[in-house]
């Protein structure tokens, strides 16, 4: 067993373990922290896959942005440390069953498909990504790029509108 393999299995275990903890812990703040670890683990997986750019983006956006956002919202809406309400037993069992069935089904499909890796090296540079991203010709991603930028703008405006809207109401109430 090579070091690379060992690292992969450790990373995988780490990702899955922290993810499971993240969706099962009773305290919301801990849940957020477990999520943070899980996301870092995924970033590590990207490093292991030698796509450092994506790993960097993952850390910057997910770890640095989304998780912080989530933690902020937890502070805004919750008393951290309080135990969260549990779902009913029936719902739990139903969820576990359906998830296990779904997993078995999907993985069965994947396993039977028997993906075979091509023997070419994966050839990427940030330069290539940037060029193709802003290219307007064939295989260019200029249009999705623009669309996504508009989406981000819209999301930003939307957040402000949603968050601001109820302020006068609160004054009245």
């Amino acid at each position: 067993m090579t070091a690379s393999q060992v690292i992969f299995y450790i990373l995988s275990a780490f990702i899955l373990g922290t993810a499971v903890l993240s969706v099962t812990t009773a305290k919301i703040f801990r849940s957020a922290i477990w999520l943070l670890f899980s996301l870092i683990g995924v970033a590590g997986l990207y490093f292991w896959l030698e796509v450092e750019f994506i790993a960097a983006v993952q850390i910057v956006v997910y770890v640095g942005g989304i998780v912080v956002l989530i933690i902020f919202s937890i502070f805004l809406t919750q008393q951290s440390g309080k135990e969260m309400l549990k779902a009913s037993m029936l719902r739990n069992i139903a969820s576990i069953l359906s998830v296990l069935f779904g997993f078995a089904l999907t993985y069965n499909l994947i396993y039977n498909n028997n993906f075979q890796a091509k023997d070419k090296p994966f050839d990427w540079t940030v330069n290539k990504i940037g060029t193709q991203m802003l290219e307007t010709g064939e295989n260019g991603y200029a249009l999705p790029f623009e669309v996504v930028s508009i989406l981000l703008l819209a999301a930003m405006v939307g957040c402000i509108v949603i968050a601001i809207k109820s302020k006068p109401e609160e004054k009245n109430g």
Partner: protein
Amino acid sequence: MADIPISHILFVSTALFFIGMYGLFTRRNMITVLMSIEIILNSVNINFVVFNKYLYPDRLDGIFFTIFIITIAAAEAAVAIAIIINLYRSHRSIDVESAEEMKY
């Protein structure tokens, strides 16, 4: 990297997906629901990168999709949190079950 079969990496992403799914079904706090969604998106990202790297090494589409998904996830998280905060103002709770006017 030929010493790790693709199916093992895909096992991680699939498992991650269903863990997120489980959280989505059982969590009653909206913020944790949102976290579950992030986990699901991550599993998808892993898939994109893995498929791109091993099956289509001469192309970059998987990378692009991953980048876009991360971007959109950020936007989605922001909007979702705005909604959650708004809901919290009106219901004084972010329990999923407390917002169940959408019935019958």
